[in-house]
C-alpha cells in the first residue's frame, strides 16, 4: 500500500505487464495476497511454487477469469482488472489452460481456424470466409505444432501430447504479445516433452511469456527470471541461480 515510490519508479520503465498490490480473497482466504511483479518485453518469466501457492490463480486474475479483490494489473498501460475476458484476449494476451482445452468435435483445422483473430463478432462470424490467407496461416501453424498431416482429423482422436500442441497452436495463431502457459509439459511422455520444449523455444521468441512449471530442468532451460510464490506471496524473485540459492526457497520448496 505504501509502495508509492516503487510504483512510480516502475512506471518509468516500459513493462509489458505490471501487477501491483494484487489481492484476491475467496471467503476471507487470500489466495493471492498483495502481489506485485513486472514482466519485461520479450521476457520469459517462470512462476514456481508448491501446490496451493496461487500460481494458477495469478494467471486467472490476469486473463480475467477471476476478479481481483484489490490491486491493479496493467498490460501496456491498460488496466485489465475492469476488462472482460474477450477484451483482454483482444488486447493481446493468450492463455493456455492446464488440461488440454480444445474442441473435440471439430477438426484440427477448425480448431485453429476458430482461434484465428478475425470475425470475432456474431456478424463477423456469419460473414467469415475461409480465404487463402486463413488457410495459409493454419497450414503454417500446423507445421509448427507437428500436426500438418492431421488437419482433417477430429481433435478427439489426437493423443494427449498432440492435444497440448494443438492448444499451443491455437494460441500461436492469435499471435499474442503476452503468452501464459499453465504447465505445458505436464503429463507428457519423454519424447513429447523434448519436442514441446523445442516448440516452446521457437514460439516464445518476440513475445513475453509467463509459464507455470514444476519441471526444474525445463525451468532452468527457458527462464530469464523466476518468481517463487508461496501462500499467495512472493517468496523470492530473480534469475534461476539466485532463486535456487535462496535459503527461504530451499526451505519451503526446492529442499523437499
Amino acid at each position, binding site marked *: 500500500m505504501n509502495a508509492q515510490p516503487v510504483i512510480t519508479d516502475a512506471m518509468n520503465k516500459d513493462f509489458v505487464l505490471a501487477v501491483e498490490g494484487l489481492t484476491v480473497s475467496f471467503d476471507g482466504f487470500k489466495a493471492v495476497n498483495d502481489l506485485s511483479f513486472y514482466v519485461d518485453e520479450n521476457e520469459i518469466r517462470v512462476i514456481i511454487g508448491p501446490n496451493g501457492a496461487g500460481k494458477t490463480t495469478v494467471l486467472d486474475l490476469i486473463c480475467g477469469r477471476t476478479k481481483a479483490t484489490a490491486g491493479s494489473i496493467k498490460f501496456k498501460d491498460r488496466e485489465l482488472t475492469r476488462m472482460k*475476458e*474477450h477484451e483482454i484476449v483482444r488486447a493481446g494476451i493468450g492463455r493456455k489452460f492446464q488440461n488440454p482445452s480444445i474442441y473435440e468435435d471439430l477438426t484440427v483445422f477448425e480448431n485453429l481456424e476458430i482461434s484465428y483473430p478475425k470475425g470475432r463478432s*456474431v456478424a463477423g*462470424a456469419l460473414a467469415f470466409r475461409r480465404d487463402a490467407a486463413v*488457410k495459409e496461416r493454419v497450414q503454417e501453424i500446423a507445421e509448427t505444432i507437428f500436426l500438418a498431416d492431421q488437419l482433417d482429423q477430429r481433435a478427439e482422436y489426437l493423443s494427449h501430447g498432440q492435444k497440448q500442441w494443438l492448444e499451443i497452436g*491455437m494460441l500461436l495463431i492469435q499471435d499474442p504479445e503476452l503468452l501464459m502457459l499453465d504447465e505445458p509439459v505436464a503429463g507428457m511422455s519423454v519424447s513429447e516433452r523434448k519436442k514441446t520444449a523445442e516448440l516452446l523455444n521457437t514460439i516464445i521468441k518476440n513475445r513475453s511469456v509467463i509459464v507455470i512449471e514444476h519441471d526444474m530442468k525445463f525451468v532452468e532451460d527457458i527462464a530469464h527470471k523466476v518468481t517463487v510464490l508461496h501462500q499467495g506471496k512472493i517468496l523470492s524473485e530473480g534469475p534461476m541461480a539466485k532463486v535456487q540459492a535462496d535459503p527461504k526457497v530451499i526451505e519451503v520448496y526446492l529442499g523437499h
Partner: protein
Amino acid sequence: MTAPVKSGRTFFLRPQDMIGIVILAILLLVVLPLTLDNFRLQFVGKYLTYAFVALGLVLCWGYAGILSLGQGVFFGLGGYCMAMFLKLEASSVENTKIQTTPGIPDFMDWNQITALPWFWEPFRSFGFTTIAVVLVPAFFALLVGYALFKRRVGGVYFAIITQALAAIMTILIIGQQGYTGGINGITDLRTLHGWDIRTDSAKTVLYFVCVALLIGCILLAYYVKSSKLGRILVAMRDKEDRVRFSGYDVSSFKIFVFCLAASLSAIGGAMFTLQVGFMSPSFVGIVPSIEMVIYTAVGGRLSILGAIYGTLLVNWAKTSFSESFPELWLFGLGGMFIAVVLIFPNGIAGLYQVYVAPHLGPLFGGAKRKVTPPAATPPAAGSAAPAAAE
C-alpha cells in the same frame, strides 16, 4: 506453404445435404399431396409448423447446447401475432354489429372492453404483422437471453427458467382474457385480405406456402451451421472457456442463436394459426414446449433434416395412436423419449448415420471424391462419433 489445405468448402451445402433437401422437398411437395386426401394433408401441414420449432432447437440445443424448454412461448407469440391480424379482419363493424361495441373482437366485447387496446392497433396491417411475427419473439428472446447469458446462467438452470417462462406466459394469456381471448384463445378466424382461409383449396395453398417457408428456413439453418458461427456454437458447447479466451464474447453468440431459434419457432406458430384457424394457450405452455423437444430428440438433435422427420413421425404416431388408444399416447411418447435417451441418443438421424449411410457411400461416391481431395483419409469416418450425425 502452398501445401494442399483441405476443408476448403466454398458453397454452404455439401452434396449429401443438397440431396437430402431435394428428397424432403419431393416428399412434401409431390408425394404427400398426391397420395394423401385433403384431410390428412392438412394434418401434415399442421405437423410441419412444429418442424420450424424443431429446426430452431437443432441450432440452439443440438449445436450450441442450450436446452430451451420454453420454445412454445415463441411458437405462441408468432401464432398470436398472426391471430390478432386475422381476428381484427374478422371483426369488421358489419360482422360484429350485434355486439355492444361493434368493430372489436368478440371476446373483448364479452369482457366489457369498449375500445381496441393500443397494442392491437398496429395488427390491422398485414405488413406490420409479418414483421412482428419474426421480431416480437426475437425481441423477447433477446431480453431473456441478455438477462441470463450475460450472467452466465446455463445448462439445467437455463432449461428450468425457460420452462418457468412457458408457465408464466400461459398464466398471463389465460388471466388477461379481455386482451388475449383467455383459455379459449383467439378463434373464429376467417379471411386474409378477403381470401377465405377456411376452404379446402385455401388450406392446400397454405400447405404449400408452409413447405416453401420451411425449406427456406432449412437453407438458412444450413447456412448458419456451415458458417464459422456454426462451428463456434459447437466449440462453445464443448469448451466454453476456451472460446471465451480465444477472444469471443460467448454470451452474444448464445443470444444470437436463441433469438434465431425463437424467430424460426414463431414462423411455425404463424403458419399454424393460418392453417388451423385459431391460436390458444394450449400451444404455449410447458407440455407443448417439452413435446417439441421430444420431436427434436427423436429425429436427432444434431441433424437439421432429422429433426424435420422426427417431428413428422412423432406427430403422425400421435395422431394414429390417439385415434385408437387415446389414453395410451402419453405412455407412448414417454417411452419414445426414454428409448432415445437410452438406446439411440442421436435419434433417427444417428441411426441413419450408423446403419444406412455407410451402404449409401458408393451412391454418393462420385460427389464425395470431389469434396475430399486425395491426401490422407481420416480414420474417423465410420466410427459414428456424435457430431458426425450430420
